[in-house]
């Protein structure tokens, strides 16, 4: 068992696709809320295997895309201080804030470093005792346990020049906000597999219970995604709504209790702003009170000035599943992966980027 190739088996994928194509019920719109699903679905050409009655929408699953400009502006303002080294994940670098991106700030002389793991930022703090090292933490529940561990480790090891700027978010409240807006009709959710390795299946249970909508927690290989769609259709056909786990090799109903405990020790839930969705109660993570000495927002008075949005960019509507990328006037002409305007095109996991790179134009027209 290699845990990858087996789930790319063309005969299994073909049989699942065949089964899905036999769907004879009413049209079904399923939404995924994970950037890794967005890319996997496009890269493996899943949409082309589905009948016209079954469509998949991308929701607010790309963490850098949902980070509002004001948060990026704060990180840039910090990075521009001569006594600060700002470390963050590579995905964040090119995302435009109100006036520039972290990449542009770096080109302008700010000390900004890309890390693969937040542990590297801890090492930087130890290696640069005269500088303050700020880790700009973003990501959903998959990532927050790793950054939580590092802040707790900084406390344990007494690393005083390590600080944390948190733009972490949690996904179930965003799913609730989408449903409450009533803007998009969603018949089923494909829930994020790796977020769910941490949180398990229980945090989604309000969705079938309160909204009557089935959920399937899915893995990321073609067979996983197709099986998840088939499971959603089975539930719709049977008039059932529950949270099912397709990705059972990685997801247990209780999630990862050690990771959850780590997150609960390091962070507290706060109301947070999402690009496209606005303010959502208890959808963000900031450092817990006991760790306030590490909180960059408390240590410095960061005032980046008023934020502004990009004119003409429809990222907000794309993130809510209201617009497909091709319905944005900038898509493909004023906004391309080479010259991106909005975050959904900048990020490799953004819906606009995935559409541009993987979706054949005839298909885009058919779906648009």
């Amino acid at each position, binding site marked *: 068992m290699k845990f990858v190739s087996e789930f790319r088996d063309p005969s299994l994928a073909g049989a699942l696709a065949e089964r899905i194509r036999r769907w004879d019920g009413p049209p079904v719109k399923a939404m995924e809320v994970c*950037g890794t699903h967005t890319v996997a679905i496009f890269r493996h050409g899943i949409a082309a295997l589905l009948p016209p009655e079954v469509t998949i929408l991308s929701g607010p699953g790309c963490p850098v895309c949902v980070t509002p400009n004001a948060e990026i502006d704060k990180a840039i303002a910090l990075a521009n201080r001569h006594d600060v080294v700002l470390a963050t994940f590579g995905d964040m670098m090119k995302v435009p804030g109100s006036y520039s991106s972290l990449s542009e700030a770096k080109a302008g002389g700010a000390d900004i470093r890309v890390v693969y793991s937040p542990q590297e930022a801890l090492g930087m703090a130890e290696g640069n005792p005269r500088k303050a090292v700020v880790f700009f933490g*973003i990501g959903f529940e998959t990532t927050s*346990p790793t950054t939580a561990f590092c802040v707790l480790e900084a406390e344990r090891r007494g690393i005083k020049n390590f600080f944390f700027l948190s733009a972490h978010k949690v996904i179930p409240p965003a799913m609730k906000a989408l449903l409450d807006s009533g803007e998009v009709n969603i018949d089923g959710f494909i829930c994020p597999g790796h977020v769910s*390795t941490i949180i398990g299946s229980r945090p989604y249970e309000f969705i079938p219970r309160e909204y009557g909508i089935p959920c399937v927690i899915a893995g990321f290989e073609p067979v996983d995604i197709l099986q998840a769609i088939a499971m959603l259709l089975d539930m719709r056909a049977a008039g059932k709504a529950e949270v099912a786990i397709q990705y059972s*090799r990685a997801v247990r109903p209780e999630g990862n209790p050690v990771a959850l405990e780590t997150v609960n020790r390091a962070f507290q839930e706060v109301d947070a702003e999402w690009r496209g969705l606005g303010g959502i109660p208890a959808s963000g993570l900031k450092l817990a009170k006991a760790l306030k000495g590490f909180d960059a927002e408390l240590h410095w008075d960061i005032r980046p000035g008023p934020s502004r949005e990009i004119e003409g960019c429809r990222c907000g509507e794309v993130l809510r599943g209201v617009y497909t990328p091709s319905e944005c006037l900038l898509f493909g002409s004023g906004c391309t992966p080479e010259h991106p305007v909005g975050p959904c095109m900048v990020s490799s996991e953004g819906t606009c980027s995935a559409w541009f790179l993987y979706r054949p134009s005839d298909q885009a027209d058919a779906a648009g």
Partner: protein
Amino acid sequence: MCLAVPARVLEIEREKAVVELGGLRRHANTALVPSLKVGDYVLLHAGFAIQVLDQAQAKETLDLLAEMAQEEA
């Protein structure tokens, strides 16, 4: 951003493991999965093992699908 990849655990020493990922050896922090054993497959994300993969569950899924594929054929 939530990309996580399966890697096989080769060695474990306290809260660190050496894992094999596509033929390469890499270090992984194992603090989030304390029950880890050598030979396990883990999901690796941002330098951390975030979950142990369950062989029996994977096999069950694949067997079920193979059965379905035969019925389809």
